[in-house]
């Protein structure tokens, strides 16, 4: 069923702060097998000009996607999440996410399209730190596949 176009432009309330921990960054870096010392060694990060260890570029997705849950699970929107696949993903960074950040995400529905029975949903997540400074914007395209013909 096509999603309601009137949801385009809807912005959801900012999420409670997510505190970025050094060990969570380390866990993520190890999970992707990336030994870059900027992720685990505060001294190495400082040599690059960062106040503490930084997170790999895609780390923030865990935070923005959780925030997008407000949209995905909005009963008024009525998305069938069991049929959703991740179509596109993009990030634009003002600065890297780093340990100690307290990040809040504001999610907005940028577009809703229907293509060959598939519902396509574009969600933008604006990530700010506790001082209100922009850190990164994440764009997530979700595709809810049309049910198979009975």
């Amino acid at each position: 069923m096509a999603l309601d176009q009137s949801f385009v432009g809807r912005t959801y309330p900012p999420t409670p702060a997510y505190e970025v921990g050094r060990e969570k960054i380390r866990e993520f870096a190890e999970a992707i097998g990336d030994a870059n010392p900027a992720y685990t060694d505060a001294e190495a990060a400082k040599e690059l000009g960062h106040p503490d260890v930084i997170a790999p570029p895609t780390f923030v997705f865990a935070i923005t996607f959780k925030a997008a849950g407000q949209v995905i699970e909005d009963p008024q929107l009525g998305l069938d999440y069991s049929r959703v696949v991740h179509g596109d993903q993009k990030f634009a960074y003002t600065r890297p996410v780093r340990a100690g950040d307290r990040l809040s995400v504001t999610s907005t529905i940028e577009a809703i399209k229907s293509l060959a029975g598939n519902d396509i949903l574009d969600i933008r997540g604006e990530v700010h730190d506790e001082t209100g400074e922009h850190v990164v914007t994440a764009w997530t395209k979700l595709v809810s596949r049309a049910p198979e013909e009975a």
Partner: protein
Amino acid sequence: MTAKIAYDEVEVGTELPAGTFPVTRATLVRYAGASGDFNPIHWNEKFAVEVGLPDVIAHGMFTMAEAIRVVTDWAGDPAAVVEYGVRFTKPVVVPNDGVGAVIEVSAKVAAKLDDRQVRVDLTATSAGQKVLGMSRAVVRLA
């Protein structure tokens, strides 16, 4: 931000050192835990087949994370990446055969932009299939 590659030293067509990233079921379980994405299509073969997939598949975000390593290793400082986007075109199928799959990533400078930035286009394949499309990063060099 302290990239180790100088803008003046790269040209359109400059190739970055390529990367080869193995992925097994254990890799996916570990990534699920670290990322919080516990969708069973990434660890439960029975479930994956029931929803029409050939087998367990890697998280798209795992593939995205591996691909950008070619850029962050090249640039030195991961903060050199100012934009990064991909399209998930084909899944990375990860069989439970003790071997798993391999993601192969190559990248080259596609355009020189203002402000010491370059656009890098990435190619990621697994089992001979392109798994990412429109895979591009904007990188600020020294």
